[in-house]
């Protein structure tokens, strides 16, 4: 992860260019692409939150959608109950995401490598099963529609996609800065030390378990943020937001874009959102093509991930 000083030069100009394109995007392309861009922002946050665990701490979580989905449901319930204030909604979302992570973390942190993966997967599936079956609360597979855009006061109406786009971008920037600060702090360096070698960190006197746990909770909080934005954008929530599909997609974003890096999650999110939407419009066999692309990418472009999965040595 680069420090602020090293962001000079070419990285900085890329960032500036990207910022310009983002700001002027609605005037360059149709509203359809603006919608896709909103999705990219949201999923970049999701991928970045997952990267705290995968890229920085070396914990390959396979149930990350749990926090995304719980936050989405929490915010959804809030909205349907009449509370449309965004700040209340996002605090609830972040809180519920973090709380779920805190709960899961207690169970998952004890495990390593593939066992960690299995347990995180199973835990998220339990939540999925509850959302799916508890029809009186969640309407099960039908989902909860009719969730409107939030109110942020100041006389701004977020119903038009255009305004929601800039709003999402603003939140995205806040999250970006927050994560940047977090991951470049001593906390972040400790996490990466744990990724490199848990035993060494333990020998140096770090409470490794606590750090891993905190990383888990932070990841849950930020994933929750993306869940909140998603439910406000979509207008509704359903069990697939908690499902294994969603979790694996997050991991794929990191593989494609490169985990543990600054731009990686964003690139990965962008590629997946565009691929899924464009390819499905071109052919009925889009699922097959997507699968082949994933296999090819993993086979040939995944070197950077070799260090992240620890086997507890």
């Amino acid at each position, binding site marked *: 992860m680069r420090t602020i000083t090293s962001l000079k030069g070419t990285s900085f100009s890329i960032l500036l260019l990207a910022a310009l394109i983002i700001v002027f995007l609605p005037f360059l*392309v*149709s*509203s*359809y*692409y603006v*919608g896709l861009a909103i*999705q990219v922002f949201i999923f970049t946050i999701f991928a970045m939150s997952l990267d705290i665990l995968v890229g920085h701490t070396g914990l390959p979580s396979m149930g990350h959608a749990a926090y995304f989905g719980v936050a989405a449901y929490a915010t959804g319930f809030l909205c349907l109950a009449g509370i449309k204030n965004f700040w209340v909604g996002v605090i609830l979302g972040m809180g519920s995401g973090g709380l779920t992570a805190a709960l899961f973390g207690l169970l998952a942190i004890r495990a390593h490598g593939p066992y960690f993966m299995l347990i995180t997967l199973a835990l998220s599936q339990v939540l999925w099963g509850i959302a799916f*079956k508890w*029809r009186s609360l969640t*309407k*099960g*597979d*039908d*989902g909860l*529609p*009719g969730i409107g855009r939030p109110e942020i006061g100041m006389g701004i109406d977020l*119903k038009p996609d255009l305004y929601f786009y800039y709003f999402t971008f603003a939140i995205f920037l806040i999250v970006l800065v927050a994560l940047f600060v977090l991951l470049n702090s001593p906390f972040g360096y400790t996490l990466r030390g744990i990724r490199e070698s848990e035993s060494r960190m333990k020998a140096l006197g770090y409470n490794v378990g606590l750090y891993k746990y905190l990383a888990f909770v932070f990841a849950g909080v930020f994933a929750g943020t993306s869940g909140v934005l998603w439910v406000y954008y*979509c*207008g*509704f929530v*359903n069990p*697939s*937001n908690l499902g294994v599909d969603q979790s694996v997609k997050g991991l794929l974003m990191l593989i494609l874009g490169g985990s543990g890096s600054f*731009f990686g999650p964003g*690139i990965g999110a*962008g*590629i997946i959102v*565009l*691929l899924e*939407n*464009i390819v*499905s*419009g071109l052919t*009925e066999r*889009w*699922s097959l093509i997507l699968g082949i692309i994933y296999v090819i990418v993993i086979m040939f472009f995944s070197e950077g991930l070799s260090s992240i999965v620890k086997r507890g040595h």
Partner: protein
Amino acid sequence: MIMFALLFLLTLGGQGIAEAANPIKIGFLAPYVGVFSKYGTDLKNGFKQALEEVNFKAAGREILFVTEDTEGKPEVGLTKTRKLVEKDQVHVLAGIISSGVAYAVKDYVVEKKTPLVICCAGATKLTQEDRNPFIFRVSFANGQQDRAGGWYAYAKKGYRKFIMIGSDYAAGHEKAAGFIKAFKFMGGEIVQETYTPLGTTDYAPYLAKIANLVGKADSLWTFYAGSDAIRFANQYDEYGLKKKIPIFCEGGMLDAANLPSQKDSAVGMEGYLQYFETVNTPENKRFFKEYREKYKDIPGSLSEGGYVGGKAIVKAIEAVKGKIENQEAFLKALKGVKFEAPRGPFRFDDHQNVIEPVYINRVEKKGGEYVNVVIDKIPDVGQYWMPKK
């Protein structure tokens, strides 16, 4: 990085392709992947058949058909709807099988002022509490045919006690409620009501429960679709229950799409639906023949539903002489559309839901094939239809 830029340019390029000579664009939404994928294909085939009959032209203007896969998932359905409306700039939307998808896209469709002709999804609110000038439905509102069926079961079949079992989602509950309402109104009794999760692979525990009620009920009502319909029918017969408690079901379970897999298990089962492939109207004979020739498959209720949706849109376009952009006139024309559909005479009610006949069927084996034989008909059933004692 390069890959990303390339992809971005590609997607921008794709924008330019569609704008040829101002055709009318219809956006069609259906699941082509997942448990209802065959239904989705049937729906599409039927719809396209209607367009093919007029050579993809109405009132001299060309019709462009674009379809997107909803995967049966509301979220995906919403994303694809956005694409059709904002990227492809369609004039009218059609299709949709899953009520979940329908509910998810409703607000968006209304906000974007794009007419939607639902060809299957039965979620009642869409043409009742949540009705809207932009939403039309040519299939049924859940409970519509079921109330007619409930009346028929009591008045004509002489049943007095029913066991109910169906899929545990909105459609299952709404349809059961419709049947029960009419049946109880007539004086009947419901002995047991159970809902099974979508995609249940093994009905054995439920079947054993039904077996316990042999002698305490006249008939079993079911609502199952897709793979559930096949499995349930097969297993029901396997457990010897078909002979003990006859089935009088929501006819979708016995749809032509399912019979080839159910085979002998389905023989003897009866039910009700707005369409069976053997409906005896001249329109249906023609439709059946052409559909079978073109798609090498027998049209089921999904095929006919898609067909009727397509035909309604075409007729409305003709009525406004191709000027679909005059939305007020188009919506009015669509609402007033009347024609002979394969199932019988077609028209919308005041809330833009279809009024249709309901047919009673029995599955028989004829000449080595399994067919739905129509044994009776209840005409003019609207979404608020209730029996008279």
